[in-house]
């Protein structure tokens, strides 16, 4: 109920904004027009949304796994960290147009190259947050483990990792929110399908309302993934208290 009200309120505010600022509708269509397009072309949008949703989910899953694995490796080994951390940071500065041909060359035009590109965007918040969490473990626990003759591996997996789960959750939340744009960026690689493709195609030729309808669906995907992730993540850390709703 409440989310619906919020959505309606936001749409009204937007309609008002368009009306007040007099933004032409080929730049920012009013929600009423977007709604009309949504109603009219929902089959097309649904088709593309399925593509993008699939890319998004796969990229998210891959990003989470890859990010968590890398963070653990970094926490475990100073050697790896020294070599690979700069690479991981540098990877975030790489625009898709520079690597798109490379990805196609290695992975073909199919979904794989798109998912990999999406994961490249999505994995970083996870690595960074989790690694951050892993390196600020409570000293007391580490001392305890140390006096227990725990091997570093066990300390990492049984103490530092669970202790860093809230940090992981933080990173995963960011990852969930950027997953849709990751998928859209991925759509630049390889063959054309998906909401990002539809948007680019429509915008390039002035079909703004349809493009914004696609954008709206994309935003819904993002908010949905975030909401689900947020729920699941809270379960992940039952010993942690949360303020707010």
């Amino acid at each position, binding site marked *: 109920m409440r989310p619906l009200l919020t959505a309606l309120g936001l749409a009204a505010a937007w309609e008002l904004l368009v009306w007040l600022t007099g933004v032409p509708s080929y730049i920012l269509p009013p929600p009423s027009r977007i709604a009309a397009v949504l109603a009219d072309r929902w089959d097309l949008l649904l088709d593309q949304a399925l593509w993008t949703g699939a890319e998004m989910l796969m990229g998210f899953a891959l990003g989470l796994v890859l990010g968590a694995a890398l963070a653990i490796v970094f926490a475990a080994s100073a050697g790896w960290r020294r070599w690979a951390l700069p690479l991981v940071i540098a990877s975030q500065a790489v625009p898709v147009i520079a690597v798109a041909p490379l990805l*196609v*060359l290695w992975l073909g035009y199919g979904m794989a190259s798109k998912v990999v590109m999406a994961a490249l965007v999505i994995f970083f918040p996870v690595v960074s947050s989790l690694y951050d969490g892993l390196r600020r473990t409570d000293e007391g626990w580490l001392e305890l483990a140390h006096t227990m003759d725990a091997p570093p591996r066990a300390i990492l997996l049984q103490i530092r990792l669970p202790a860093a789960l809230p940090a992981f959750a933080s990173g995963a939340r960011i990852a969930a929110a950027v997953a849709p744009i990751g998928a859209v960026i991925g759509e630049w690689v*390889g*063959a054309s399908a998906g909401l990002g493709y539809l948007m680019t195609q429509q915008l390039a030729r*002035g079909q703004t309302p349809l493009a914004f309808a696609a954008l709206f669906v994309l935003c819904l995907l993002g908010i949905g993934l975030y909401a689900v992730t947020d729920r699941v993540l809270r379960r992940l850390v039952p010993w942690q208290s949360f303020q707010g709703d």
Partner: protein
Amino acid sequence: QDKVRLLLDWFVNPDHAALVIAKQRGIFTKHGLEVELIAPADPNAPPKLVAAGQAEYAVSYQPTLQMLAAEGLPLVRVGVLVGQPLNSLVALEESTIKTIADFKGRKIGYSVSGFEEAVLGAMLESAGLSLKDVTLVNVNFALTTALMSKQVDGVIGAFRNFELNDLEINKAKGRLWLVEKHGVPTYDELILVAKRETVDVGRTKRLLAAIAEATAWIKANPAEGWALFAKYGKEFDNELNKLAWKDTVPLLADAPASLDRARYEAFATFLTKRGLIKQAPPLDSYLRDIN
């Protein structure tokens, strides 16, 4: 049946009419080809991927081919889809810009193609101006949007078969300067390229024959052609493509295998003079006459 991957230059649009119709009407199959059309998002990637062996053919542009050839990419032109420039300089009709000379001190938008400075420079010089007299702004793909919202006073890189229609749909009228009439040598807008070492002449012949046949059919049945094209994908069935279709069909090359070497010679000279390529590679290194 030969399996062939053909990379389009961009998203599917009426410029690709012959390819789409040849596929839809089974003309490729008739010529013993099973063609997969792949639309990328980045117009610059296809020729590189062809050079790297990731596809047999790509749709590209003559100037791009010549620049890439100068950079040593092993590409050859094997055919043509649109044998004349589509590129043009556009301003709003309602604006104060009536001639190219009126652009002095104005902003001109473009979408990166790699040679916009060369084309625009030549056009401006034909009117006694130079690139220094205007401000160039990369507006990426939002050419008409930038123009209509008056963020720029003109755009270069607008396709004559598209952008005017786009303006029209949005209730604006454009004024158009054709590049080839204002100091730029004429060139082939859309061509087919293949990898130099691995061109299969026989197969290419069949491909071009199929395209020629499709082109002929389209020109004979433009309305039916549009209906078929609109069925290729839900996203292609829109007002703009419908209008553009009408303007594009007459421009499709009747003889895709034809080759005008002089055109390439002249344009190479133009690019060299404009500083886009240091040294023009020999024509034979990137042109392959399929006939």
